[in-house]
């Protein structure tokens, strides 16, 4: 048996908090030195906080055999990207070591090094070279790349004139034609339209199965993970929480997500360095399709700042964004957050129209210091409403995310007795204002049930 293609032993990465940005310029550096010298002379104690450190990754050990496709899951800040960055040598670990036995290419972003002014053709060569392809290799694959990206007509147009879809397609196409022994991919499938995403997944599948390449794949998209990966590493707070079969780890992850929102009232989820999220609750949880869903958010600012934008992001279990809840103040006003003065938001989503299942919830926060998505902070479940049509409901996986209420249905060209009939309760029917608007000749018979 050959040795594993990647073996990581006790990998750890430590970042310094807070102080990193404090001495960003030489001038700041010099003032800091003078200040501390002043303290020595005046005999005052150093009242500055000692540097705080955070372990983004700690004690991570695992082996990857050649040809395996490994999914890496975990919340924002669990260390997924840090792990990929260490393996691709972008950043150095603070401790531990990893052995990589093969040519490794990392795809942490599509279109790295793309230049707006250059044409598609020029960018293919440039991006290919950045990703580690030789000129000969790119030349050989050039036509294939262009065809995959479907940009033949625009290949000599500067990419700044591309639509965002074309841009992403071209960028991914270059990356997809890399032929390293190990491919490290971070969340790049979150971009592009659904059809292209499927194409990318297909390409990755082809690369892993057909060519026996090893892939490390980070995603919040559980269906992509389930489709591609043979094994999953579940990271939580910088440590490995589980390694093993895909379904088992994904289930554990989703369970943890839900557990957090049901469990104790107080959580302690950092939103950048400026805020702590202390509560993020949904009730009732589970909620029935069509009922109102209450939510409560408490945020503790750790400094004075302004919040411009706050949105709740709702994702399906597989990582498709289902909707957002916009919590901005009216007229574009910003919210002035004060240090240690908690912000509490209580809200109600009207008659939630989601198909039963688990939903993952994140936050988008835009404040003075940063704007960012925080994925997978919480979760809620939706349970099915009792059917009143007499039909057995179609399986949730066939129904997408939305339960669209049908008010009337018209199906022409069928025998009269076969035409669709609308079923609804008396109350719902009574509320429908346009029943008389139905064209007289359409032949649809309304029947009131119940």
């Amino acid at each position: 048996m050959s040795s594993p293609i990647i073996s990581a032993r006790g990998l750890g990465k430590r970042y310094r908090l807070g102080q990193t940005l404090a001495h960003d310029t030489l001038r700041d550096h010099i003032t800091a030195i003078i200040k501390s010298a002043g303290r020595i002379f005046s005999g005052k104690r150093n009242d500055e906080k000692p540097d705080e450190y955070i372990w983004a990754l700690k004690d991570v050990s695992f082996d990857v055999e050649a040809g395996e496709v490994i999914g890496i899951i975990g919340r924002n800040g669990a260390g997924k990207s840090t792990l990929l960055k260490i393996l691709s040598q972008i950043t150095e670990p603070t401790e531990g070591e990893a052995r990589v036995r093969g040519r490794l290419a990392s795809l942490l972003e599509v279109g790295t090094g793309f230049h707006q002014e250059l044409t598609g053709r020029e960018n293919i060569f440039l991006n290919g070279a950045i990703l580690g392809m030789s000129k000969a290799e790119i030349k050989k694959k050039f036509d294939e790349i262009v065809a995959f990206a479907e940009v033949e007509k625009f290949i000599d147009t500067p990419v700044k004139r591309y639509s965002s879809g074309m841009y992403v397609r071209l960028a991914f196409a270059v990356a997809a034609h890399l032929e390293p022994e190990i491919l490290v991919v971070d969340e790049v499938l979150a971009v592009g339209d659904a059809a292209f995403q499927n194409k990318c997944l297909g390409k990755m599948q082809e690369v892993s199965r057909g060519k026996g390449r090893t892939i490390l794949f980070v995603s919040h998209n559980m269906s992509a993970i389930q489709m591609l990966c043979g094994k999953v590493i579940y990271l939580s707070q910088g440590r490995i929480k589980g390694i093993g079969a895909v379904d088992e780890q994904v289930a554990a992850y989703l369970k943890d997500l839900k557990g957090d929102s049901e469990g104790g009232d107080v959580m302690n989820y950092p939103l950048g360095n400026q805020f702590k999220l202390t509560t993020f609750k949904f009730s009732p949880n589970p909620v029935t399709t069509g009922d109102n869903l209450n939510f409560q958010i408490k945020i503790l600012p750790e400094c004075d700042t302004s919040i411009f934008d706050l949105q709740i992001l709702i994702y399906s279990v597989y990582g498709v964004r289902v909707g957002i809840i916009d919590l901005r103040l009216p007229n574009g006003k910003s919210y002035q957050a004060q240090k240690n003065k908690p912000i509490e938001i209580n809200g109600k989503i009207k008659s939630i129209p989601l198909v039963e299942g688990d939903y993952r919830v994140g936050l988008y926060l835009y404040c003075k210091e940063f704007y960012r998505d925080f994925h997978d902070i919480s979760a809620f479940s939706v349970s099915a409403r009792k059917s009143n049509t007499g039909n057995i409901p179609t399986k949730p996986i066939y129904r997408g995310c939305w339960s669209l209420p049908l008010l009337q249905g018209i199906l022409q060209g069928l025998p009269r007795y076969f035409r669709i009939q609308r079923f609804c309760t008396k109350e719902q029917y009574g509320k429908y204002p346009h029943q008389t608007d139905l064209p007289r000749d359409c032949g649809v018979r309304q029947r009131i049930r119940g």
Partner: protein
Amino acid sequence: MAEYERIIRPRKGIIAIDFEELWRYRELFLFLTWRDILVRYKQTYIGVAWAALQPLLMMVIFTAIFSFVGKFPSHGAPYPILVFAALLPWQFFANAMTESSQSLVASERMITKVYFPRLIIPASAVMSGIVDLIISALILLALMWGFDVPFTSRMFMLPVFFIVAFLAAFSVGLWFSALNVRYRDVKYIVPFIVRMGMYVSPVGFISEVVPEKYRFYYNLNPMVGVIDGFRWCILGERFEPYWAGFLVSVLVILILLVTGAIYFRSMERTFADVI
């Protein structure tokens, strides 16, 4: 498979330059240089003309100030040529230093997303100035023809001095680009150095103007040796450099290069985290 094994672990102390790896990434170096050159001349309608116009205007101004107003000596050589011969390496050096000191910060996205030897970035930034240099060199040839300055075989020595200029720009670029990642005020320091350097270096005058006893120290400015060399190649015997001073210039460049490389390599580990 075992033929290619990499061990990733925290590194400490002075990190040697991995020349083998640099060689493997030579194509990326060329691609980045090519990109910089392409981008520079794209969508600028007077792009090439600008590269020609800038040194020409400076030549006119410097000739006016130093020759007509200041009555500086010229060993009998036509003053415009004397100035232009110095502007050639100086412009290259100034542009290369400006570009390369910004280069790492400008490539932030690449640095945080892909691995490659980071040394390539400032090096290709210096290299991309070569097109401007070639354009200026062509103008110089035209000027020499116009002013009846004889072409001599000594001009084949120019590449040697060019390499010295390249190393000077690269060594300074190494220092500033790495410093710039950490301290963004480098952005303000570099233009200042460029502006001052133009008057401190013998661009508008010949270095014999400097009193004999200070000549040696004057050459601590590495561009002094380079500019003297360029003049010697172009204008002939009377401009023979002060060789001891030239050696000092080269020595300063080598020191800057070695310390710059050491500093760059030691900072390289943290680029992705700090930038």
